[in-house]
């Protein structure tokens, strides 16, 4: 990890640690629980999109799969929720690993369509297997997570729970970027052929990072299921996958802190601007087009651009 990233991550963690003391039991704290979950999801997508240059439009469904497996294991079979969370993450990443082999052979537009297709098939399964998932009307009564005598059923506890996982995800993703694997991923992103000539097993690497992305998404899904205690297919559809894509693009491809910014902005905006609620998909659409055209590295790119400018002018 770069020195600046280390300092930034440390400062960020401290801010997160003290945030509940400032915000108290407020609505914003409640929203921050979801910002944490969305940050994990955005980083999971960013591993694919920003690091390896592979698009996935099925992220929402992997997230949903994690949530449903956790919900079914804990509410129907009485499995310990922590164990259920681990089991569902393993299952979801195994599924991703297996379907990853044929899917990640595809490139560009075809990859986008295949992941989209996978997402829609899973979405239809969530809706149709009513005996398991409760179908379109949802799955109620998912138990909260417990740690000793502490039950994660209030916003402060949930905040620390979710951000514990979100910070670990951020830390690992930052580490990965500067590691051997991270360099290999970026090589694949720049030119798959060149990467293969340099001895990178591009296909296997893409499949592995897809599985890792699925693992994180599944954990986020389990956290969502256990904190909200109710899930329905509508949260895991194509629109949500596009929302995640918007978070990553707004924040900046390949930037971990950018993913947080994107997740925070896109989660807070609808809360602050009630009008935004009706216009959200119009605004997401515009954001995607405008940022890709004029600011392809997102907010993170803007920040480093400004930093470079200040640096040059101070010399």
């Amino acid at each position: 990890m770069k020195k600046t990233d280390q300092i930034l991550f440390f400062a960020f963690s401290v801010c997160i640690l003290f945030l509940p003391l400032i915000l108290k039991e407020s609505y914003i704290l409640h929203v921050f629980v979801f910002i944490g979950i969305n940050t994990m999801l955005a980083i999971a997508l960013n591993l694919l999109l920003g690091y390896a240059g592979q698009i996935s439009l099925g992220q929402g469904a992997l997230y949903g799969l994690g949530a449903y497996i956790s919900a079914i294991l804990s509410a129907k079979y009485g499995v310990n929720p922590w164990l259920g969370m681990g089991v569902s993450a393993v299952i979801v990443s195994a599924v991703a690993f297996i379907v990853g082999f044929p899917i990640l052979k595809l490139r560009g537009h075809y990859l986008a369509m295949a992941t989209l297709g996978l997402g829609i098939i899973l979405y239809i399964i969530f809706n149709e297997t009513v005996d398991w998932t409760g179908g379109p009307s949802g799955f109620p009564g998912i138990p909260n997570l417990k740690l000793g005598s502490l039950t994660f059923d209030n916003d402060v506890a949930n905040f620390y729970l979710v951000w514990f996982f979100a910070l670990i995800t951020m830390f690992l993703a930052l580490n990965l970027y500067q590691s051997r694997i991270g360099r290999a991923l970026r090589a694949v992103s720049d030119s798959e052929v060149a990467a293969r000539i340099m001895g990178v097993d591009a296909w296997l690497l893409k499949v592995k990072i897809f599985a890792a992305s699925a693992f994180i998404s599944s954990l986020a899904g389990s956290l969502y299921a256990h904190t909200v205690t109710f899930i329905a297919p509508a949260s895991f559809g194509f629109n949500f996958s596009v929302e995640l894509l918007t978070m990553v693009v707004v924040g900046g491809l390949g930037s971990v802190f950018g993913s947080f910014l994107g997740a925070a902005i896109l989660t807070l905006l609808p809360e602050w601007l009630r009008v935004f609620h009706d216009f959200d998909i119009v605004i997401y659409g515009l954001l995607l087009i405008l940022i890709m055209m004029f600011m392809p590295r997102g907010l993170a790119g803007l920040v480093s651009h400004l930093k470079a400018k200040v640096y040059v002018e101070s010399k």
Partner: protein
Amino acid sequence: MESSAQIFQYILSGLANGSIYGIIGFGFAIIFNATGIINFAQGEFVMLGGMVTVFLLSLLQWPLVYCILLAILLTLIVGIIFERLAVNPLKDASPITIVIITIGASIFIRGIAMLVWGKDTYPLPSFSGDTAINLGGATIMPQHLWILGLTCIIIILNRLFFYHTIYGKAMRACSVNPKAAGLAGINVRAMVLISFAISSALGALAGIIIAPLTLTSYDVGIMLGLKGFCAAIIGGMGSGMGAVLGGFVLGILESLGAGLISAGYKDAIAFIVLLAILFFRPGGLLGRSGIERV
């Protein structure tokens, strides 16, 4: 056991739906051949066709046929604006950039449609009544005949355009090799614009002719667009005729699957077929070699 009349019924309605997928897939193939882009906003042209017709019908009170023509024209204009604003400025953009931009455009158009027309579903009157016609034990709606007839006309017009007009030939040249086409004096950028115009008009037409059967709303574009893409993939992206045949295959599979297995999984069939083809025969079932591009 299902009776053979019932199977015949499924195949008939499968053919009609399949024609729609085929026409939409044709739109995908035209843009793909001109630009190498898979236009994720294709489904929104389909939605616009149906919705604008419904809207014009209640606003202007004109006869249906004028409303349809005007709706196709308006969608075509949207297609041209889309090309000028979002696709034309991109030079040598990576596929991921293009995918994200066309997805952005797609949800933007869908969002505008939702704001203008709300989330309700709207009916469109059938072109010539709702009296079912009996055909060998199966019933067929007049609208089905319209769909099949118009599909045939589109296939013929397409053949005439791409093989017997100078513009069509120029577009085929661009799809084979844009650089060489440019050297031969063909305005490649103009051909890209024309491809978007034709493709959006075809999408609109598909959306209009299916609306009387399925109703229409601001969000029909996602599913119809994806199934159109699936049809194009089955037929092999390089071929317009392939897309129509791919549409028939998909339509029949879907209606047999819905009838014989489970109606709830009807939409999943298209995507399972899509994934299977992408995995095992990325060049399409009909293959590339057998059929000329366009």
